[in-house]
């Protein structure tokens, strides 16, 4: 019988842990290509007081996170254990004036974080579903209690850099506009290409805490 030095593992062994170092390197080398022309200092509040999570497995997630980081957000890499991430890295920062959490991630990450954040009074104000499954183009469904027009417009014009455009637009919209009169929904079919490492279904999201 062969003895192996490494085993790809069962469910608990998560590629996110294996790829963490690679992800950190990727964070350093992913240069901004587009964002400064759009996400200018004119945007009202920027992303200060925001934590943005990046999944190092997926370049679109990293690009999105970097676009918020440039506006002042604190970037944290997603870990396989979201409970540890929440209790060790995010929750303590709530006391230090962190007021928003955002990401372009797999859906399960949002699902878990919403439940971990529930007791702290977090409200999910925006969710966007970005879908490339079984189709040639992309489908985007946005919903939330923030103004969605700017996000939709950024997606429409963001071909080739949709994740970066989305991140910049979210900073702008969430910081400058408050829409309390209920939830809004926008659906779009676009021709944006998925990155080669894309899981082909992402959610972009924003949750906030009231000051």
């Amino acid at each position, binding site marked *: 019988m062969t003895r192996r030095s490494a*085993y790809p593992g069962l469910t*608990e062994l*998560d590629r996110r842990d294996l790829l963490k170092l690679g992800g950190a390197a990727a964070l350093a080398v992913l240069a901004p290509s587009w964002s400064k022309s759009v996400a200018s200092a004119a945007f009202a509040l920027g992303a200060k007081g925001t934590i943005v999570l990046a999944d190092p497995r997926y370049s679109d997630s990293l690009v999105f996170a970097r676009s918020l980081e440039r506006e002042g957000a604190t970037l944290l890499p997603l870990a396989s254990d979201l409970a540890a991430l929440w209790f060790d890295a995010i929750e303590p920062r709530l006391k230090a004036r962190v007021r928003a959490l955002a990401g372009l991630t797999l859906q399960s990450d949002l*699902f878990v974080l919403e439940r*971990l954040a529930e007791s702290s009074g977090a409200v999910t104000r925006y969710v966007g579903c970005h879908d490339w499954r079984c189709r040639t183009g992309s489908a985007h469904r946005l919903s939330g209690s923030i103004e969605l027009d700017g996000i939709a417009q950024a997606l429409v014009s963001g071909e080739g850099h949709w994740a970066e455009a989305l991140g910049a637009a979210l900073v702008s919209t969430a910081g400058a506009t408050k829409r309390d009169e209920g939830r809004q929904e926008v659906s779009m079919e676009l021709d944006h290409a998925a990155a080669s490492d894309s899981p082909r279904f992402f959610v972009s999201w924003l949750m906030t805490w009231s000051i």
Partner: protein
Amino acid sequence: MPLPPGLSSLEFETACQELRTIVGDDWVLTSEDRLTGYADPYSPGVAGEHAPAGAILPASVEAIRGVLGVANRRGLPLWTVSLGRNYAYGGAAPCLNGSMILDLKRMQAIEVDAGLAYAFVEPGVTYLDLYKFIQDKKYGLWIDCTDPGWGSVLGNALEHGIGYTPYGDHAGHQCGMEVVLANGDMLRTGQGAMEGNPAWPLYKYAFGPSLDGLFMQSNFGIVTKIGVWLMPEPETFAVVEFLFRREEDIAAVIDSLRGLRLDGTVPTATIANWMRIAAGNTTRTEWYDGKGPLPESAIQKLIREMGIGYWGMRFGLYGPTRIVAEKLRIVEKAFSRIDGAEMTVAKYRRGDKIAPEHGTLAGIPSVDLMPLNWLGGAGAHIECPLVVPMQGAEFLELYRRRTELFKSEGFDHYCGLTSTTPRCFINTGSIIFDRNDAEQCARARALGKTLIEDASKRHLAGYRAHISEMDLVAGQFGFNDHSALRTYERLKDALDPEGVLSPGKQGIWPKALRNAKDVEGEPP
């Protein structure tokens, strides 16, 4: 929100006013926005049939007794949850539409005796809480936890939940229980029936009948505290992982493992098929972007590129270093007869930092729901895990049959086997689906029902079930004209004559609703 059956909105509001005087205004919830957390997050399109009328959150046994007084007087059905994280089986949602959720999350007391290695926990204590409590005190004890580990220690034990260490049979490692009965009476089980008896959390049995089992997966009382045994941190902990190349290898794997489980060499084990391994690490579209189940060519590509086997197996070995070393030799020899098997071992000494991927085998709770992303969309899963004997050939036949059933509804077969007792597996078969896709929800429901019915034809049944399938599974235990269920019903009528506690739980309905069900042929 629906009203409790038989109550007008005025009567319900009156009951809520009375409840507010007991627990305070903030802890009686009736508005829709404050009840969203009590919906089943994985509901396969049946959330509307299992919606709560409201929720009440007492923080003490005394408050629970007050709530029961109102419920009995007003005919208010209560659906008890510890934290409501019983996902895949309904979460916090009730069987009976319009029940009031009795949410015990505010009860969070923990007591640990490091010398005798046990803890008492209240319903609101999560595995994360208990782990942190023990780590902070540096007790040198390990817990056993589920994966994910954000659920209630007490709630999971009551549901016969499982983990991955030698203490993975959670009901088996529960000892001592405090229960509030429907009439408000409080009892302690086992040695706890004697005031101050120190053996309450140490010795499972009573002077007379053992009552603990009556309050597990049941609706005979409200469990407010249990004792759980804790494992001393071992001198050496070895993580053993195997891969096996072929589908048919599972027969030999199981037959080899059985001997090691029966003689105690291996304390517990988990086996996963390619799909469970893949879903824990990747998404389906990374391998195939067509509709329907993965074709064989995509499965083979996945296995090849991930460097996995058709099956993977993992377990821990625990104890003195020399004993663990000898067990490793025995284990290697036992599985070496399976052609192509590969074995990996990681060893830890007491106090070593344990790698995240080995955490659950060391009772370190974490939360990661990666498999939900398999199909994309709003991932969810339901299942009815079977209790299957540890017999290789029989399981291989069952596996192939269930693969065909999964395929027939367009799903990939997610299969896991966990042995926390030495003669059986719990066979998980998660049906992963997009809960926002009505067509997928319908297929998931249909497959769930088919799997349950097919298992019954083989005289096998689930050890747990989704709230929408509890009657179906309960009805399959039909020996002697359902004498077990008839006995449960007699107990229910005696212990909860007004029928206010968790109506419908595990197919046990109170008399009034049972009669309505018999007339209409459907659950109320």
